[in-house]
Every structure is written in structure tokens, then in C-alpha cells.
């Protein structure tokens, strides 16, 4: 089974990379992009029966830095 973890900078934490992407889109002529936030997706192949709680523990311990990042878990 797979677990997919989305890690994003928390709201309110400045995202200079997202801001640079927004500027680049503007200069390519894409108007109206008001905000870009850049995050990452981490895909895990995990043993059957792995619980979301276990993946949450992985996020808390390593995959996300909860001082600045939030995360969402999708199990499939």
C-alpha cells in the first residue's frame, strides 16, 4: 500500500520560492496568479496494514518540520 504525504509551509510563513514562481508566471504572461505556495509530495510504499497514525509519527519525527510546515496524509 501507499502513503502520500503533502508537506507545505504553514500559512504566514514566507515562501520566497513560491513568490519567485509567481513572478515567473507573471512574466510568461499568465495574469491573475495572486499567490503561489510551493510544497513537496513524499510517496511511501509501506507494508500492508500500516496505519495513518504510524505515518503521522513519521511526519512528526522526520518528514515535516512542524515549526514551519504542515502536512496532510493520504493512504491508498
Amino acid at each position, binding site marked *: 500500500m501507499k502513503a502520500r504525504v503533502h508537506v507545505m509551509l504553514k500559512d504566514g*510563513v*514566507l515562501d*520566497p*520560492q513560491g513568490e519567485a514562481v509567481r513572478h515567473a508566471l507573471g512574466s510568461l504572461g499568465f495574469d491573475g496568479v495572486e499567490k503561489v505556495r510551493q510544497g513537496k509530495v513524499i510517496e511511501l510504499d509501506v507494508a500492508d496494514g500500516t496505519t495513518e497514525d504510524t505515518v503521522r509519527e513519521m511526519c512528526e*519525527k*522526520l*518528514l515535516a*518540520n512542524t*515549526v*514551519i510546515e504542515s502536512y496532510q496524509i493520504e493512504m491508498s
Partner: protein
Amino acid sequence: MRAAVVVFPGSNCDRDLAVAFRDAGCQVDMVWHKDTALPDNVDIVGIPGGFSFGDYLRCGAIAANSPICSEVKAHAERGGFVLGICNGFQILTETGLLPGALLRNAGLKYICRTVPLIVGTNDSVYTSGYTVGQEIGVPIAHHDGNYTASDEVAAQLAAEDRIAFRYADNPNGATADIAGILSENRRVLGMMPHPERAADEKHGGTDGKALFSGIASALAAA
């Protein structure tokens, strides 16, 4: 006085840090990240700059979970001294020994130059050789040195006189111009600038030297 310098895959300031400790009169042991113990009777642990584990995932995140880091944490929790420079600072925030986090520089560029710092406090072994408000020149070399903390944490650091160094001219967007902070017991220092690169005449500057001599004289007297 005994110092240990931790080496991770990708550390590149470990030997410079060892030289700076040695020049200040310390006996220095290098410790590999897979080691599970620090040398006996270590007074201070140095976490060097570099790109531990290639900065994968987040700068310092993987190093912070390496076997030696549990020992470094235990050492700090026993009241031991820990100095983290650049990637070492990032690692210390990832371990939770210091609050906040280091984000990508606001200008998105890697910055490598000597910058002016203002000494924020001289109430620590690291800064006792300076005067409060003194301006010193110390090199920075980082892409992710933008110190970020919540307003409450930043206010607490200021109120508790734990901001060791501030940038005179903020190069990276750091909250409250913070370049280096102390732990609550003032024995753990994390800083983005590299004092070990300003500790010998041949470096082109010696403003970082007082940090190492301050540690050595404080710990020799202890």
C-alpha cells in the same frame, strides 16, 4: 578542555572548526555521525557547517536524526555546551535544542561574504570576549539562513537576552535580524555566520577568535 566535532557525510567545515578549537587550547576529537557515544569528559560539542546528507528533505533534518545526535541532545540536557555553526545551527533547530527554523534566504540566492554582526549579549561563554553592541565582521555562506520563529518565540528570545548576534544589515530576511541564538541555559549556541573562518590572520579577519578563546577560558576556569 575537551571538544568534540561531529562529522556527517557532507560536512565541510569540520576541520576548520577543529583547528579553531585547537588554536584556543582545546583537545579535539572528531566524532562520526554513526558513533553512539561522545568521548568521555567532553565539555563542548561542535556541530560544523556544510551540507550534511546533501541537504536532502530539509537542511539538517536527516543529521538531526543520526545516532550521534541523541548523544548530543543528552549532553546538552545534562548542561553540556554545544556550538552549532551554519548547517550546525540548522541541525540544532531540527533537534529541538534551539527554537525556530532556518528557511531559504528571502532573496533566494546563496550568499557567501563577510557581513557585519552586532553582538547582542555578552552573557554566555561564547560571547564573553565581546562587548554588547560591538560590531564584528564574520563570513556567512548559506542558502537557507533565514531564521524564522513565531512572534512569541522572537519576543521571548529578546526578553531573555538570548540573541547572541544580529545582522547589522540583514542579508537573508531573518526574523529580527537574528544571526545567532542561545538556549535557555545559555550553553547551546547556534549561529549562521562562521566564526571559525575569521579566527586566524590568514583568514583575512580575526573577529571570530574571541568566541573560541571565550569558550576556552570559561571552561578552563570551570
